């Protein structure tokens, strides 16, 4: 974005704005066809791409799990070699945690943030497109390795020394390093985009205490990622040095420390797991009010709980390392911190229950997913609380008890919130409802299948079953539970399939939906379904947390003006910049046109990094050169962006 400082925007009525609508359409629309799609910087298009791509990765990760569950259904099965199994469990984790769980939330946030905040786009539209392409290329890079039988095979946390060249000589781990570095770039620029958008692009009047909780969730995750992602990038760069250039950062025979990897990885990894749940919790915090027809109970407490969870989340990483022989005093500190972090989550749980209790629920599919989410959240939370106790963890860590815990929190919190969010916002994105009957079936099959599949994992963990084993003997008593788990997992998969089918058939022939099919109170429901390319004809002026509910809530005299009166900004692609705390109008922000540079730069950087990691120097050189040129072209000052003095 760039700033135009010599013009005051016109404040006009809706009738006057109507006359300018076709012009706005022409200014903001993306030309049809492949080139338009490749060069678009429209946040709605990018958001939908993130959603579709992450769901494809969800399906791939699910297929990996389905094969593993066949292998584990009974003792001594030989469907898969140990190496094949190792690649499957590694790619399952990598796909779900990095290629699905965070990007799907980025997809929602990308699509919704400008609509929720009353803006025409994100702060940096081209950077937005770039973060998507980097994500896609990172995923492709990691899956190409799979197709060549050389996928990462050391678990998603990739402990050294097994990850070092001596024990894992193929390109498997190098592929993982490549993917994570590219993904790190994607996540970092995405985080910067969200933070600056929040600081500068809110509609006038949308002070910080009026933003929806999903904004708090994604904002918190973004700030955290800025600090956490460098740790994992560093870890992979040092690992690459050890593997390729003979250094000994992690190699004890050369004076290095295997535990250094674990510290760096988990300093990133723990905040990351909060990054993949806090925006999802925000979806529920914003969704339950819609279907309970009342504002969220304890908005300020929930916003504070979101931020404090993430802050505390930086102080608990050693709970992944309780069995490594670290001094007991330090373990006690991290154990206590891991228990204290239960409290902000408790704030959110009771806020949700209170909202339902004092509200009037409508049993839509979305509501069912949000309600089911609350129960699964608590089950996942308590198994985490159990493992937070150091001696308990000494029995439970590295077993299926932890697998149960992590799936209850990731599927229960992320997936259930995401699916509920899709049922809620699908009408906004496509102009059509999803089928409610199929929806309810998909909920019950998913909910029941999930619990049958994953609850017994607690038990088989207590029975001593470790993680990451490709088979187990017949005389340890794990066969019954594993068979139940496999059945449950497949039932859950059927539920997910019903959801996917529902999306496809509804996209094609679902019942038409208007601007506000659920009667929601926030700004995204004030524009058409799907929204026009410019989002808002008039930048709205906001007086409350729920601009569309002001008559009913009767909280005072001030009224927001959505669609009645607002700022008309139509001298090219423009939106309004406001001040940080109270969102008073400040500057006009000039937005860029569609551009191919984000795609070109990401392809070039991928070539550059691939060449570096695999020592293909021609690729490295070409990639670097093109990246430099693309970067220059991208940043070249443009008159239309007011980057050149008149």
């Amino acid at each position: 974005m760039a700033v135009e400082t010599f013009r005051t925007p016109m404040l006009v009525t809706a009738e006057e704005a109507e006359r300018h609508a076709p012009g706005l359409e022409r200014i903001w629309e993306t030309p049809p066809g492949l080139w338009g799609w490749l060069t678009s910087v429209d946040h709605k298009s990018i958001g939908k791409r993130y959603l579709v791509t992450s769901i494809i990765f969800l399906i791939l990760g699910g297929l990996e799990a389905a094969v593993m569950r066949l292998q584990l259904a009974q003792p001594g099965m030989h469907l898969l070699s140990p190496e094949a199994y190792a690649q499957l469990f590694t790619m399952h984790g990598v796909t779900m945690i990095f290629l699905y769980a965070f990007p799907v939330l980025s997809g929602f946030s990308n699509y919704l943030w400008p609509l929720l905040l009353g803006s025409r786009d994100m702060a940096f539209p081209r950077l937005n497109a770039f973060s998507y392409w980097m994500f896609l290329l990172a995923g492709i890079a990691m899956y190409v390795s799979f197709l060549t039988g050389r996928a990462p095979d050391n678990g998603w946390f990739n402990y050294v020394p097994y990850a070092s060249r001596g024990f894992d000589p193929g390109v498997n781990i190098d592929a993982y390093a490549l993917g994570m570095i590219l993904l790190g770039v994607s996540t970092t620029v995405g985080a910067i985009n969200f933070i600056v958008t929040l600081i500068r692009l809110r509609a006038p009047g949308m002070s910080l205490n009026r933003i929806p909780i999903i904004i708090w969730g994604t904002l918190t995750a973004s700030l955290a990622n800025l600090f956490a992602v460098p740790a994992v990038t560093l870890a992979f760069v040092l690992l690459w040095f050890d593997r390729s250039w003979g250094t000994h950062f992690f190699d004890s025979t050369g004076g290095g420390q295997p535990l250094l990897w674990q510290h760096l990885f988990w300093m990133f990894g723990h905040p990351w797991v909060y990054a993949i749940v806090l925006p999802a919790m925000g979806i529920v915090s914003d969704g339950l009010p819609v279907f309970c027809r009342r504002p969220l109970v304890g908005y300020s407490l929930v916003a504070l709980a979101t931020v404090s969870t993430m802050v505390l989340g930086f102080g608990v990483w050693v709970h992944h390392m309780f069995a490594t022989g670290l001094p007991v005093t330090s373990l006690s500190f991290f154990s206590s911190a891991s228990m204290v972090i239960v409290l902000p989550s408790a704030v959110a749980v009771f806020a949700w229950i209170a909202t339902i209790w004092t509200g009037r629920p409508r049993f839509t599919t979305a509501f069912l997913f949000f309600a089911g989410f609350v129960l699964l959240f608590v089950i996942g939370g308590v198994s985490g609380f159990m493992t937070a106790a150091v001696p308990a963890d000494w029995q439970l860590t590295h077993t299926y008890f932890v697998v149960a815990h992590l799936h209850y929190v990731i599927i229960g919190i992320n997936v259930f919130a995401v699916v509920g969010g899709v049922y809620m916002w699908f009408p906004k994105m496509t102009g059509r409802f999803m089928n409610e009957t199929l929806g309810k079936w998909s909920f019950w099959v998913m909910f029941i299948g999930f619990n049958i599949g994953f609850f017994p994992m607690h038990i088989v963990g207590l029975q001593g079953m470790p993680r990451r084993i490709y088979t187990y003997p017949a005389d340890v008593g794990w066969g019954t539970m594993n068979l139940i788990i496999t059945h449950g997992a497949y039932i859950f998969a059927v539920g997910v399939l019903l959801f996917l089918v529902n999306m496809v058939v509804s996209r094609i022939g679902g019942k038409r939906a208007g601007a506000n099919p659920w009667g929601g109170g926030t700004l995204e429901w004030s524009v058409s379904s799907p929204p026009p390319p410019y989002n808002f004809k008039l930048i709205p002026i906001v007086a409350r947390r729920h601009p569309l509910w002001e008559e009913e809530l009767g909280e005072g005299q001030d009224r927001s003006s959505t669609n009645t009166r607002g700022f008309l900004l139509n001298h090219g692609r423009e939106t309004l910049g406001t001040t940080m705390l109270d969102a008073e109008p400040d500057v006009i922000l000039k937005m860029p046109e569609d551009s191919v540079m984000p795609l070109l730069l990401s392809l070039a950087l991928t070539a550059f990094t691939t060449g570096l990691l695999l020592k293909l120097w021609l690729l490295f050189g070409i990639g670097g050169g093109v990246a430099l040129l693309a970067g220059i072209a991208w940043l070249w000052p443009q008159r239309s962006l007011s980057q050149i003095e008149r």
Partner: protein
Amino acid sequence: MRVVLLSTLLLGIPALAAAGTPLGIFSDSGHDAQEISRLIALFGGVSIAVVVLIALLLASSIWHRRPADTSGGRPQRDEGGLPWIYWGVGISAVVLLICMLFNLGTIAAVARTPDDAAITVQVTAHQWWWEVEYQDPDSHKDFLSANEIHIPAGEKVRILLSSADVIHSFWVPSLAGKMDVIPGQTNVTWVQADQPGTYRGECAVFCGAEHARMEFRVVAQTPKDFEAWKVHQLEDAPQPQDATTLRGRLAFESRCAACHTLRGSSAAGMAGPDLTHLMDRSTLAAGTLPNDMGHLADWIRNPQKQKPGTGMPKVPVSEADLAAIVAYLRTTH
């Protein structure tokens, strides 16, 4: 009250399921494991009670009776609900604090490695077997074994853990929590078995292809039996008594000595397990196969088929030599 009873019942199910399984946590037979089982039972009980309570609250919040809706589905004012958060978080904080104190208490009970351990055993983890060394002040009385650790029952045993290659994890669920084995450092853990018996253990951190087949056994004996066992371990394997076993020893020295030690023969290789008293062990290949004649022959004939990726290569050996080697090894009591 109903909540408490329901929780106890629900906790009983996993406990019943877990008890009686050889690698289960609640098969606790050692000091540490018992302390930890108590802690898990407390935390588990609290957890189940919380889940049941929240489920009931959630169900009530959805279905409790409400006055008739006169607003035609329109949203309503922000009426109360904050006390839910205050009470809920307040009670949670109190319960959490009590649990934290129990946690710290249990840490104190199990974390300190005692100074008065009766014996020390050195365990070195390899991909995918466990090397066990007993040291004595008189170094002539040191000896090596593999995959089975004998200890005196009722006494504290210190275990020093080293790794020959990657990270492994030493875990005997019925006796104690696990301790990772990390190259470049020596981690210390301790166990104490109350009663004589055999306690199964396993590797608990992914360490490569055959991580799934890296079991070991802890055999607790009465102090008298343990002393007798130690004396016996120091003896060499018996001399061959007939032509077959003599042929077997010669074949062993020729094909197997590069990696294995077998005192009583000239084999002194250090890459693989010490086989001097192989027949005293209940399994082969770290819990992969039972230790009987047929499985021993299968293992030697093609270890890669039994445990793909294992460190022992398929050494070409004629069937006659194989039978002789097996006959010789069967004398290593």
